[in-house]
C-alpha cells in the first residue's frame, strides 16, 4: 500500500510538472499569431488553403484555425466574449449577429472600406445588409446559401410528370405532389417538413407575408399572408401528399428523400454534397427553383467573417479579414464545392463543382432573395416557432390559432429585447 501510494503521488507530481512545462512558452520572435474561429469541419481544408495563401503574402503573421462544432460554438463564443478572449477573427451568422454587434463585441469595418481594401459592392446586397447594424457594417460576407426544390427524377419518370422548372407555381407543385403520391408503394409527393429557413419562411414571403417587421419590434405571424404561407404546407399533410409530422419525426425528411420515399423536398444549397454522394440519390437527384406563390421569394443566409472588438492585433486581424473577403479566397472556397462563395462572379466555379445537378438555380435565386429574419435574441422566438408550430404541423390545432399564439409570444419576446 505504502509503495503504491508513493508511486501514485510521484506520478501525479510528474503529470503536473510535465503539464506545466508543456504550456505555451511563446515563440520568442516578433511573429504575430492570430486565432481564427470556425465551426464546420467540412470547410476546414478550404480555410487552411486560404490561410496558407495569406501567410505566403504575410510571413510575419501566423494564423491558427480553431474548429469548434456548431452545437458548442455559440456556448464557447459567449463564454469567451464574457472572459474577453474571443478569437481575433471568427465566423458569425445572421441569427447571432445583432446580439454581438449590439454588445460591442465586434469591430466595425469602416476603416477597411475607407482605405479601399474592401469594396462592399462586391457582395450580394442582402448579405451586406444582414451584417449592418445601426448604419455600421461589421462583417465581410463569406458565403451564402439559398433554397431549392430537390427532386427525384426516377419517381417523376415513373409518374409521367415533366420535371419542375422555373414556370412552376404553388398550384402546379401541389398537383404534382398529389400525382406523385403512391400509397401502395409508400411514396409521397413531397416532404412538408417543419423547417423555417429551408421551408416555411420561403412560402411566407412568397405569399406576401413577413416573419418580423423591419424595425424588429413586431411579429408578422398574425398577418393573413403569413398564415397562408404556413397553410401551404399543412394542406399537403392534410391531403396526404406528404408524410405526417409523426412519420417525419421518426425518419428525417432527408432520409426519406434519400430512400426514394419522397419525390420532392425543399432544401438548402448545402445539402447538394450529401445528395450527390448518397448511393441512392446520386444519379437521380436534380434541383429546380422554388415554385412561386403570389411572387418569387427565397431565403438567403450567409456567414460573415468578423473581427473581435478587443483583439490585441487590430492591424493584422483586419489585414486577414480583408484577405478573407478577397476574390482569391472566394475562388478557393468555390473550388471545394462546400459553400457558395459570396464574392460576386466567383460563384460560377462553385456551379461547376458538381455538373450533375443544376446548381445555377441557387445563384439565380439570390436575385430575389430575402435575408433570413433575425433580431437581437433570435434563438428565443425560434424556440417558440418550433414548440407552437409543431402542434399545427401535427394537426392538433388549426394553423390560424397556432400562428396567432405564436405572434403573441413572439411580440412578448421582442418587447423584452429593447
Amino acid at each position, binding site marked *: 500500500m505504502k509503495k503504491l501510494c508513493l508511486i501514485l503521488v510521484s506520478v501525479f507530481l510528474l*503529470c503536473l510538472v510535465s*503539464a506545466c512545462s508543456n504550456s505555451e512558452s511563446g515563440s520568442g520572435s516578433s511573429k504575430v499569431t492570430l486565432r481564427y474561429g470556425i465551426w464546420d*469541419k467540412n470547410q476546414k481544408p478550404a480555410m487552411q488553403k486560404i490561410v496558407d495563401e495569406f501567410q505566403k503574402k504575410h510571413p510575419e503573421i501566423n494564423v*491558427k484555425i480553431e474548429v469548434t462544432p*456548431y452545437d458548442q460554438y455559440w456556448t464557447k463564443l459567449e463564454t469567451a466574449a464574457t472572459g474577453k478572449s474571443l478569437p481575433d477573427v471568427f465566423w458569425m451568422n445572421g441569427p447571432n449577429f445583432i446580439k454581438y454587434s449590439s454588445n460591442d463585441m465586434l469591430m466595425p469595418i469602416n476603416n477597411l472600406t475607407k482605405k479601399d481594401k474592401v469594396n462592399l459592392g462586391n457582395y450580394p446586397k442582402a448579405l451586406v445588409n444582414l451584417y449592418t447594424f445601426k448604419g455600421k457594417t461589421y462583417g465581410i460576407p463569406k458565403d451564402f446559401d439559398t433554397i431549392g426544390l430537390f427532386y427525384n427524377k426516377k419517381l417523376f419518370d415513373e409518374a409521367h410528370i415533366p420535371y419542375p422548372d422555373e414556370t412552376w407555381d404553388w398550384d402546379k407543385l401541389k398537383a404534382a405532389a398529389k400525382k406523385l403520391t403512391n400509397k401502395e408503394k409508400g411514396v409521397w409527393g413531397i416532404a412538408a417538413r417543419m423547417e423555417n429557413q429551408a421551408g416555411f419562411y420561403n412560402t411566407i414571403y412568397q405569399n406576401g407575408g413577413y416573419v418580423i417587421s423591419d424595425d424588429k419590434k413586431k411579429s408578422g405571424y398574425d398577418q393573413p399572408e403569413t398564415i397562408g404561407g404556413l397553410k401551404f404546407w399543412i394542406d399537403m399533410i392534410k391531403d396526404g401528399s406528404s408524410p405526417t409530422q409523426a412519420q417525419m419525426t421518426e425518419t428525417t425528411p432527408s*432520409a426519406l428523400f434519400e430512400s426514394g*420515399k419522397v419525390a420532392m423536398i425543399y432544401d438548402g444549397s448545402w445539402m447538394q454534397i450529401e445528395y450527390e454522394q448518397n448511393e441512392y440519390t446520386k444519379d437521380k437527384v436534380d434541383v429546380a427553383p422554388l415554385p412561386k406563390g403570389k411572387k418569387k421569394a427565397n431565403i438567403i443566409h450567409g456567414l460573415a467573417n468578423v473581427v473581435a472588438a478587443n483583439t490585441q492585433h487590430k492591424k493584422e486581424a483586419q489585414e486577414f479579414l480583408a484577405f478573407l473577403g478577397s476574390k482569391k479566397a472566394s475562388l478557393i472556397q468555390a473550388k471545394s464545392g462546400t459553400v457558395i462563395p459570396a464574392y460576386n462572379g466567383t460563384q460560377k466555379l462553385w456551379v461547376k463543382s458538381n455538373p450533375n445537378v443544376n446548381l445555377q438555380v441557387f445563384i439565380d435565386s439570390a436575385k430575389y432573395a430575402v435575408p433570413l429574419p433575425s433580431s437581437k435574441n433570435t434563438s428565443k422566438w425560434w424556440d417558440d416557432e418550433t414548440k407552437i408550430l409543431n402542434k399545427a404541423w401535427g394537426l392538433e390545432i388549426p394553423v390560424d390559432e397556432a400562428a396567432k399564439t405564436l405572434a403573441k409570444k413572439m411580440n412578448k419576446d421582442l418587447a423584452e429585447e429593447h
Partner: protein
Amino acid sequence: MPNASKSSKGLIHIVLIIGAIIMVFPFIWMVLTSLKTFGETTQVPPVIFPEKFQWENYLNVFNSLPFLSFYWNTIVSTLAKVIGQVIFCSLAAYAFARIKFPGRNFLFILMLAVLMVPGQVFLLPQYMIMAKLDWLNTIQALIVPGLFSAFGTFLLRQFFMSLPKEIEEAARLDGCNHFQIYWHIMMPLVKPGLLALAIFTSLWGWNDLLWPLIVNSSPDKMTLSAGLASLQGQHYTNYAILMAGTVLAIWPMILIFIFLQKQFIEGISITGSK
C-alpha cells in the same frame, strides 16, 4: 426436477444472450460504420455490412487530427484527476467523517450544496479564473478544476463513517496522530471506495466534452472527446470518419474495462450508482 432446472437455466441463458447482443450491438455497429463509405452511411434502409472495408477511414482521421496529442492530453489529464481526487477527496472526507471541529456540519452542507448545482453554472466563473491565471489553452486548465469534487468527498465520507471507532482509538493509544491514522489505518480499509472513485473519475475525465471544448482551442491541447466532436459538420457529418475516430478514442477504455472488470462491477455495486 433436474429437467426443470435445466430448462429454466436455458431460459436464463437465452435472456442473457439477448441482453448481451443488445449491449454489444452499438459497438459492433460503430465498428461496421467506421468501415463504410460516406454514401453507405446515409443509405436508407441502412446497409449492415460495407461492400468493401474502408480501412483508409482510419488513416484519414489519424492524418486529419493530431491523435497522438489527443491521447497524451486525455491520458495525462485523466490520470492527474484520478490521483488528485483520490488524495484530496479522501483527506476532506476523513476530516468530515472522523474529526470533530467547530462548523463541521455547516461546512459539510456548504459542500453538499455544490452537488446540487448543475455543472454548467460553474462554466463561466471557472473560465474567468482560467483566463485570469492566463491558463486558457493549456493542459493544466483541463486538470486543475477536476482535482477535487464534492461527489468524491461525499462518497468517501460514507466509507470513513462506516469504520468502527475502536480502530481509531487503538491507533491513538499507540500514539498515532490524525494524519497517521488517516494514512496507515483508514486508507487501506476504504480501498473499495477509493477504487470506485478512481473508476468514476476516470470515466468522467475520459468522456468530458464541454469543459475541454470551451477552455482549450488549439487542436494540440484538446482531449479525445473534444477532438472527436470537431469531426461533426454543420449540415452533414461524415459518420464513417466520425465512427473511425470514436473507435480510436474508446479502445483504451474498453481494454481497461476488460482487465479491471471485477473491480468495475464491485465499485458500481458498492455505491449503487453509475
